């Protein structure tokens, strides 16, 4: 074996030894592919393709996982998401691109708290741009808009708001995970040393605790509904770390003045520009190797969820006791797909919906499947 071959073989052994086990969530693959196909085909083309028979394949893409299809007894009703005649524009008013897919999709359905429409949310609007040194020019910036809530959160996509998996706040994995609810974030200490202990007090005082403290303080400032005095403590905690370089009197890319905190965490160098007087983040810059990104915070404040946003989140309609016909129409209106499955029933007349999965009121991703249990009689 040549030295080169030997080195390559050693490398392969090393990879086997140290490569992390990455659990890939594949549950979103088929729905996402289907949405892409629908978007590409457009409403009418889709209908033609489906009618021509090629669609049976596309249609089975709608079959949700874990749905047992009794042989021959299932009918799939495809209601194609409306091809955006009156839908939202694909770009923001500033001309920024909107995301096609939610960055943090929910797994299945979310049953929101009863008062979700009237609750407070952390409203964050970010203009994200970046790229890789030496590859292509900069793309149009991406607009990311999120509503971080207590029990349910939302993200905007090009086709409207969808529920998003943004909690728990400060989610950290490991043997000493940090996981805080909305209420716990609000109740964090407002004094830096106490805040430090509340976040990483259980960590041994090693580099890991330092890493965790930096990560947690940074995320408290940008991604959590922390009250102003908690933010102020988090900023002080961050900037007092010996690993953080602080530069006062800098401007972000929008020309807003703030103070910059620069630190290296794992493989990335991060610079957070913060408005100390207003206690709000202005800009987050990160670099990993030759890759570089800038997130400008256009908005980062507590706010009520606008009614129009709440109304546009796909919600499972109440379909029980109605016909499959009615259900297909109601689902299409919410841009959902319904799948009918026959069930015997002593109490519900044949052809009527006995129950739905998820149940009425659940918030789901656009294009999700609602399974109708349709009575075949006793």
């Amino acid at each position, binding site marked *: 074996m040549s030295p*080169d071959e030997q*080195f390559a073989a050693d490398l392969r052994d*090393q*990879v086997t*030894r140290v*490569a*992390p086990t*990455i659990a*890939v969530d*594949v549950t979103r*693959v*088929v729905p996402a592919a289907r949405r892409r196909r629908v978007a590409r085909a457009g*409403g009418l083309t889709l*209908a033609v393709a*489906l*009618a021509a028979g090629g*669609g*049976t*394949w596309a*249609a*089975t893409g709608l*079959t949700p996982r874990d749905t047992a*299809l009794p*042989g*021959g007894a299932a*009918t*799939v*009703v*495809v*209601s*194609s998401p*409306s091809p955006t005649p*009156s839908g939202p524009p694909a770009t923001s008013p500033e001309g920024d691109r909107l*995301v096609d897919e939610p*960055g943090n999709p929910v797994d299945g359905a979310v049953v929101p708290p009863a008062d979700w429409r009237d609750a407070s949310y952390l409203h964050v609007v*970010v203009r*994200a741009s970046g*790229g*890789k040194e*030496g590859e292509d020019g900069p793309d149009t910036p991406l607009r990311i808009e999120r509503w971080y809530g207590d029990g349910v959160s939302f993200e905007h996509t090009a086709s409207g708001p969808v529920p998003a*998996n943004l909690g728990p706040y400060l*989610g950290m*994995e*490991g043997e000493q995970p*940090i996981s805080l609810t909305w209420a716990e974030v609000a109740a964090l200490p407002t004094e830096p040393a106490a805040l430090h202990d509340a976040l990483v007090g259980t960590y041994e005082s090693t580099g*890991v605790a330092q*890493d965790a403290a930096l*990560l947690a303080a940074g995320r408290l400032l940008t991604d959590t509904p922390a009250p102003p005095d908690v933010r102020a403590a988090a900023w002080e905690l961050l900037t007092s770390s010996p690993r953080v370089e602080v530069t006062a009197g800098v401007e972000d890319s929008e020309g807003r003045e703030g103070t910059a905190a620069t630190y290296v965490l794992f*493989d990335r160098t991060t610079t957070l520009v913060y408005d100390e007087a207003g206690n709000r983040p202005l800009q987050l810059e990160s670099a990993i190797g030759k*890759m570089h*990104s800038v997130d400008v915070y256009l908005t980062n404040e507590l706010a009520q969820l606008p009614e129009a946003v709440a109304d546009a989140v796909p919600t499972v309609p109440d379909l029980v006791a109605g*016909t*499959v*016909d*009615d259900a297909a*129409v109601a689902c*299409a*209106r919410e841009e959902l797909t319904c799948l*009918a499955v*026959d069930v015997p029933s002593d109490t519900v007349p044949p052809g009527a919906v006995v129950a739905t999965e998820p149940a009425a009121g659940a918030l789901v991703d656009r294009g999700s499947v609602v399974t109708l249990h349709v009575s075949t009689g006793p």
Partner: protein
Amino acid sequence: MPMVAGRSSPDRVDAVDVVVGAGAPAEKEAEFAAFMARSAPALARTAWLLCGDAHQAEELVQQALIKTYLAWPRARQGEPLAYARRVLANLRIDGWRRRRRELLVAPDALPDVVEGGPSAAERHAERDRLVRALLTLPARQRRIVVLRHLEGLPAQEVADTLGVSLGTVKSTASRGLARLRGVLQAPDTTTDERSGS
């Protein structure tokens, strides 16, 4: 069972009716699901070697699988894993820009190792060093080195996967490997030799 659906639907609703039997399409669906389950770990490892980040790797694999699904009738004609790997290796790594929920994985969260073996922290450091070394290679070179040497694919398959000539694969793989070795074997700042002599 006969089909039912909303022909008389309001104008905004554009309902389409399809009857799906439990026959061939379901089998295809199951076939793709089985393929995903089988190939995701291998694809994730390749993706991780290419980008050095577990979250980004997951995203890359998901994107590659979406594209593979859309081309499934074609992909399944040959070796679907090779097809998916080709898609993966040619994806522009721009998904990382979409910042995701960041999760801190502390070194002590890594699986335990057998007694006497390297500690979790040591392995973490080794992993870190490997990733950093790979990231010093230009993207094109890294793709070739990863597929040829770290995944151990035959040079011809790498050439087919990336759509470059066999000669390019051979020369680039060799140069890239030399560079990687240079980076990985660079003397540490704390060598014993200095203090020893």
